[in-house]
């Protein structure tokens, strides 16, 4: 597909979110631009608490931004008319991080799984049951689950119900917050394949700490750390050659869960500093001021890179020699033994 650049489903201009005020203010998301164009799925990875779910909630209009605005068809979502809002709801669907908690415990699975499609209208009760059966089948669940309640399913089964539900009404954009965390590798593979197959009609925003999921489903990747997008660019470029020291640690740890980044620190960064400063093995004097992004297509916010570095995305390791502990363990190509 070759689509015009202005073919955006949803755009966010400098959206940010701060919870609380004064000394208690907590900047969950620093002002960020995101634009979803048809067929260009975006992955979001980053540490726990870095603002990934908050960013999705802003895009869904579940949280009001404290900076910037989310636009649907060019209009800020806060000022959509009723009809526009209904269209926005039908266009954008989501699977939340807590699939158990987001399914109404009193409804049966066949009702839950067809809810968005039912809400958009045009279904008889009979065709609704048929749709339920088909959707269950798509996510490898037996038809007899249709008459169960959510708590009678396992964690991974609920997660699959939530995914089937989100794609059931043919939306254009689906926001997935840790969609496959409770699934074993085989079922996970089946679900990722299903989502990838629908990738021609659907565009995704995928939050996942599992980089293999992001690698499969997304074209562009944002790496977040404490509210900041510290790196963004084509997914492959980042996974092949992560530039930010945090991204490098993230990629390096993929095959080694006990991987000790060796610089865990709980000391919070000072105001205005790079938030990674106290954990970063390369921290320098300049790092007490958060740098601006460097680069166009592949951007990084880190003082190790200067604007004259250009777009050389193949150069992953910071300029520190080959004995650098992180660079030497970056091994995205290493197969599982």
């Amino acid at each position, binding site marked *: 597909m070759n689509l015009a650049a202005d073919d955006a489903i949803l755009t966010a201009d400098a959206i940010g979110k701060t*919870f609380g005020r004064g000394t*208690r203010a*907590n900047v969950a998301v620093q002002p960020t631009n995101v634009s979803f164009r048809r067929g260009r799925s975006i992955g979001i*990875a980053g*540490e*726990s*608490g*870095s603002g990934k*779910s908050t960013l999705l909630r802003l895009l869904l209009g579940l949280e009001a931004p404290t900076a910037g605005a989310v636009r649907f068809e060019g209009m800020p979502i806060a000022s959509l008319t009723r009809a526009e809002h209904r269209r926005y709801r039908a266009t954008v669907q989501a699977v939340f*991080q*807590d699939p*158990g*908690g987001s399914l109404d415990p009193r409804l049966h699975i066949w009702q839950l799984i067809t809810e968005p499609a039912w809400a958009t209208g045009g279904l008889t009760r009979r065709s609704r049951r048929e749709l339920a059966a088909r959707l269950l089948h798509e996510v490898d669940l037996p038809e*007899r689950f249709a*008459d*169960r309640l959510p*708590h*009678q399913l*396992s*964690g*991974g*089964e609920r997660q*699959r119900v939530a995914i089937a539900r989100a794609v059931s009404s043919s939306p254009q954009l689906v926001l997935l*917050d*840790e969609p496959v*965390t*409770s*699934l*074993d*590798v*085989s*079922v*996970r*593979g*089946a679900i990722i*394949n299903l989502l*990838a197959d629908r990738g021609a009609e659907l565009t995704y925003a995928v939050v996942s*700490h599992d*980089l*293999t999921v992001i*690698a*499969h489903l997304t074209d562009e990747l944002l790496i977040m750390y404490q509210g900041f997008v510290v790196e963004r660019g084509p997914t*492959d470029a980042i*996974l*092949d050659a992560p530039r930010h020291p945090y991204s490098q*640690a*993230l990629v390096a740890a*993929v095959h*080694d*869960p*006990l*991987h*000790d*980044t060796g610089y*865990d620190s*709980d000391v*919070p960064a000072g105001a205005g500093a790079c938030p990674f400063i106290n954990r970063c093995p390369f921290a320098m004097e300049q790092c007490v001021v958060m740098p601006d992004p460097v680069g166009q297509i592949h951007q990084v916010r880190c003082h190790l890179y200067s604007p004259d570095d250009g777009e050389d995305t193949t150069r992953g390791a910071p300029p520190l020699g080959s004995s650098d502990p992180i660079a030497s363990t970056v091994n*995205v190509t290493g*197969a*599982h033994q």
Partner: protein
Amino acid sequence: MTASTTTSDVPAATAPGDPLLQISNLSVEASTSAGTVRLVDGLDFEMRRGEVRAIVGESGSGKSTVCLAILRLLAENARISSGTITFDGERIDDAREPALRQMRGRKIGIVFQDPLSALDPVRRIGPQLGEARRVHGLGSRGQVAGWVRETLGSLGFSNPARSARSFPNMLSGGMRQRVCVGIAFSAEPKLVIADEPTTALDVSLQGRLLRLLLARREASGTAVLLVSHDVAVVRAVADRVTVMFGGMALEEGPAADVFAAPGSPYTAALLASVPTMSPERRRARMSTIPVATVAPSPSGCPFAGRCRREVDACRQAPPPTVWLAPAHHVRCFNPERQP
């Protein structure tokens, strides 16, 4: 390695080295509108003090049900239909509610699979995290508050004081999950049952949490029953592993042996599905275990229909136990390898 326990609270029958948890022939059934279904079928295993045992297996294979059965927290429509569970020298499969309440939290810490709904939404994090210590008299008010801040710090919270004052909905998914892990260990239990405790964590925090868990085992001999779909995690921390499919433990043995040379065709197929990140595989389809063309027969092996080593017998009777090594067995008619 068997960690020592203070002898005073060890009943005479359980000298160190005796099993802490013993499950034999455990079956769990549930009644549904479509009749009775068997969720767990004839499960056996033992855990020693300080041991880390992992349960891996297919989504829906009964892993959480096993955890809930041990804690006696099965859903209303489900019950233990046969077998015994012995914990710390006492039968708990038929214990009464007051004794069970004593046991939960204090002797057995729990991390539920749905950590996001496990916290009380209207109470602040600090008091919830410190509650078990306060209730069980493990320190004064001030000491507990100090312990809470210290624990939040060690769980990777960059601002422990702020997080302690927060309500659960003000924390991210991974933060809540870490709080739940802290609660599970808070009363210094003998066993922690952790159902998918690292699902919401990025790899660097996950590593930190796992190292913390191993440190607790070293320091106080806490045994851990870890349910995880993450093969890399299990490989890194577990001493022994149980592989479940369709309610049955199809393989049981030392983690290193099971992963190096799986004996059950299901384990082998599961390991073969572990994705790699190699650039040429990234956009390729993920490998999966093909779905069954014919449903397995209820009396046969649950993996029949999807198994590439299936023989005629597999649909006729429950698979027999085959010992591959003194502490490693599979249930299979046609294992990947012979003893």
